[in-house]
């Protein structure tokens, strides 16, 4: 169980990126974290995985706990060892390494050779296309294959919690569907908890149990996935649906006011 308790994050000690963010990821759940660009979603993930330090960021207030350990001052290495893996935004592959070496490096913190071998087969089972490409240099893979590879690479660490940062980025809708189906399977079959950051709110809420909406560094809304899917504001701002039948000018005004309330 992961718990963020009122955390505040600064970059370079002056740029306030998160103010009072609290959220929970219960064991075995899929939690969606939604919001527009710059809302602080990725910052929240980096605060959890410890990667903030690579960008001169730090949690200045509040705390992050995972399975009874306080992790907000830990080195990323030790956080990975506790079972949290972040799959970073934008498919950060090792392009000169082969697909199989990319996957193997995912198991870096582990020493149980026999089980690693089994997990490699398991990863190929989830992503059969990678098996055919195993000796290929990773840089030559297509975007979708690369995204599958980095998720597989994360899986190779046998995480208790996976932080996925925009797995749908730049992919064709049909591929997005395929990848999200696999994420759902991983959650169901391996029991891996998943914290999912997405711009694509529709697909994220379709597999998530619970969701949080962020704006300008704060959580502005949270609830079950069903509740969020039916929420008027979420519908309008994130799902691109709006109530029909209202006059345009009135709706614009209402939209503006509602938006303003959110951003405050």
């Amino acid at each position, binding site marked *: 169980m992961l718990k963020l308790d009122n955390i505040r994050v600064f970059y370079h000690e002056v740029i306030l990126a998160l103010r009072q963010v609290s959220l929970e990821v219960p064991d075995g759940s899929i939690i969606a974290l939604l919001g527009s660009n710059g809302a602080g979603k990725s910052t929240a993930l980096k605060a959890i995985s410890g990667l903030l330090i*690579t960008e001169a960021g730090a949690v200045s207030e509040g705390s992050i706990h995972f399975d009874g350990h306080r992790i907000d001052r830990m080195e990323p290495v030790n956080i990975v060892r506790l079972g949290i893996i972040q799959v970073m935004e934008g498919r950060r592959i090792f392009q000169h390494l082969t697909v199989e*070496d990319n996957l193997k490096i995912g198991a870096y913190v582990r020493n149980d050779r026999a089980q690693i071998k089994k997990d490699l087969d398991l990863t190929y089972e989830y992503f059969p296309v990678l098996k055919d490409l195993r000796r290929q240099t990773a840089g030559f*893979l297509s975007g979708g294959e690369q995204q599958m590879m980095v998720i597989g690479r994360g899986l190779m*660490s046998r995480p208790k919690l996976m932080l996925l940062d925009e797995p749908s980025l730049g992919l064709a809708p049909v591929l997005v569907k395929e990848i999200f189906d696999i994420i759902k399977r991983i959650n169901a079959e391996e029991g891996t908890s998943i914290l999912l950051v997405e711009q694509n709110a529709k697909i994220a809420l379709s597999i998530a149990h619970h969701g949080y909406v962020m704006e300008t560094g704060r959580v502005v809304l949270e609830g079950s996935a069903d509740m969020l899917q039916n929420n008027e504001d979420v519908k309008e701002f994130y799902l691109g649906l709006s109530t029909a039948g209202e006059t345009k000018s009135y709706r614009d005004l209402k939209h503006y006011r509602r938006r303003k309330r959110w951003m405050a």
Partner: protein
Amino acid sequence: MTDFLQLLLMGILVGGVYSQIAVGFVVIFKAGKTFNLAYGEMVMLGAYISWTAMDQWDLAKPVALLVTLVFAITLGLVVERLLLRRMTSAPIHTMIMLTLGLAGVLRGLVLVVWGPDPHAYPDIVPTGTVNLGDIMLPTNFIVSFFIAIAFVALLSLFFQYTKAGLSMRAASEDKVAAQSLGISVKRIYQLSWVTASIIAALGGILLAGISGVNLGLAFMGLMTLSVVILGGIDSILGALLAGILMGVATKMAEGYLERIESLKGIGEIFPMMLTLVVLLIRPHGLLGQKTVERV
């Protein structure tokens, strides 16, 4: 013809040692994307330490080698911990200037401790020559060559197949992604400096066996920078190829071009000229990695 073959073979033998030394640059560059300009001095120190252990302290040769190894590991650890660790987020040219400063300090230290006089190096391997018809090859050159090549082969196996090697390659491509998988970048830097320091010390021993112990070893060590640039700065195989090419080019230039009175000394700069021409044609060096990109 005999002349030509003699020069060719000597060039290859010397080139093997160049390659072995050059690999140290590759290791540092792969890990930190920086050049270590104190590398020549580290090579020289390896030679001086092993010479002192054998010649001054009268230690048995294997023990002397062990002493040198321990010294090299310590040097790598200390330099990384005291200097480079503080610079991990500094711009690359800051790190390069730092290693330039270190070069000066180490050279000064050698002068203070050992003085400027050259010394003869004890024979680690049997002396003599191997005669192939009219071609005469010194045994120590041959042995040095094979030691150097074996070492380079071992090193490339290390990078290809071991977990530590794989993690070093991964970290050299994307440090943040490597960290996200639990690879400690600090450990990678440490490992790369220790590895490079060991390579330098071994190179110092091999070079000293060929040309004796003197301050010029630092220059010879640094000269291999042009070898790695020629080979492609991040490729071990490239360093191997370029080292041998460079050895042959140097010997040929010394053998043929220096017969012309006005070209005396061209052997020393010929490799650089060669590097320049190759870079004009292949900016990534012979085997340097281009950024892989799908078209």
